[in-house]
C-alpha cells in the first residue's frame, strides 16, 4: 500500500511517500494513522495533531473509512489553496 505525505506532515515524517504493510488488524484510516504514529518519533510528531486529513485514491475520507482495496492513501493538513 502506497502512502503519501504532504506539507508539514511530509516535513515531519521526513519523506514524501513510502510503501507500507500494516498488519491485518489495521482496517480503517484512523487505525492506520495510529499505527503510523507508533513507527517512530518523526511519525509520532507528524500524527500528533488531530487535524490531519486523509484521502484514499484521490477522494477525501473520514477516519472511519475502510482501507481495504486502497491503492494510495494520502495524509495532509487542512487544505489552504485558492
Amino acid at each position, binding site marked *: 500500500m502506497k502512502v*503519501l505525505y*504532504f*506539507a*508539514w506532515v511530509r516535513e515531519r515524517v521526513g519523506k514524501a511517500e513510502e510503501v507500507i504493510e500494516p498488519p491485518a488488524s489495521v482496517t480503517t484510516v484512523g487505525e492506520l494513522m495510529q499505527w503510523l504514529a507508533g513507527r517512530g518519533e518523526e511519525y509520532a510528531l507528524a500524527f500528533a495533531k488531530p487535524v490531519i486529513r486523509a*484521502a484514499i485514491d*484521490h*477522494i*477525501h475520507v473520514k477516519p472511519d473509512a475502510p482501507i481495504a482495496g486502497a491503492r494510495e492513501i*494520502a495524509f*495532509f*493538513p*487542512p*487544505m*489552504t*489553496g*485558492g
Partner: protein
Amino acid sequence: MSPAPIPITIRLQQADFDVAAEIAALARGRADVGAVVTFSGICRGGEGGEAITALTLEHYPGMAEAEIRRHVDEAVARWPLTGVTVIHRHGRLVPGDNIVLVVTASAHRQAAFLGAEFLMDYLKANAPFWKREERPQGAATWVEAHHRDDAALTRWKDS
C-alpha cells in the same frame, strides 16, 4: 435530452495565466454567452500587519485535478453554465503574483456569479493545495486553514 458538453479546462501549472485569453476562450465566436465572471486570487504582501516575502504552493498531483473536476462537474449540474476554466498555480510565488483563476460563462449573470463563487469556496476548503509563507525574519511557516473557509461552504449545502 442530456445537455451538450461544455468547454471545461482545468490546469495546474507553475506558469502565470492570461485572464483575457481565458475569457476569450469561453466567449469568442459564441452567440449564447452573455456573462463571463472571473476570479483572480493574487499573492498578498502581508496578513494582519506581518509581511510576507514569498509563498510556496505544494499540491497533490492527480488528486488536485480530480477534486477540481468533481466540483466543476457539480457546478455545471447546478447552474446553466456554458463554460468553466480553473487554473491553479503551484511552486514559489511572490506578492503580486497570480495564484488561481476561475472563469465561468453563462447566458445570464446569476449562473456565472454563483458558479464562480461555489468553485472558489470549494477550492479554498477542499482542493489539495498547501501554502507555505516566507517572512523577512524567521523560517517559513505553513498557512493554517481558516474556519471561515469551511463556514463558507455551508451556503452550498442542499436543503
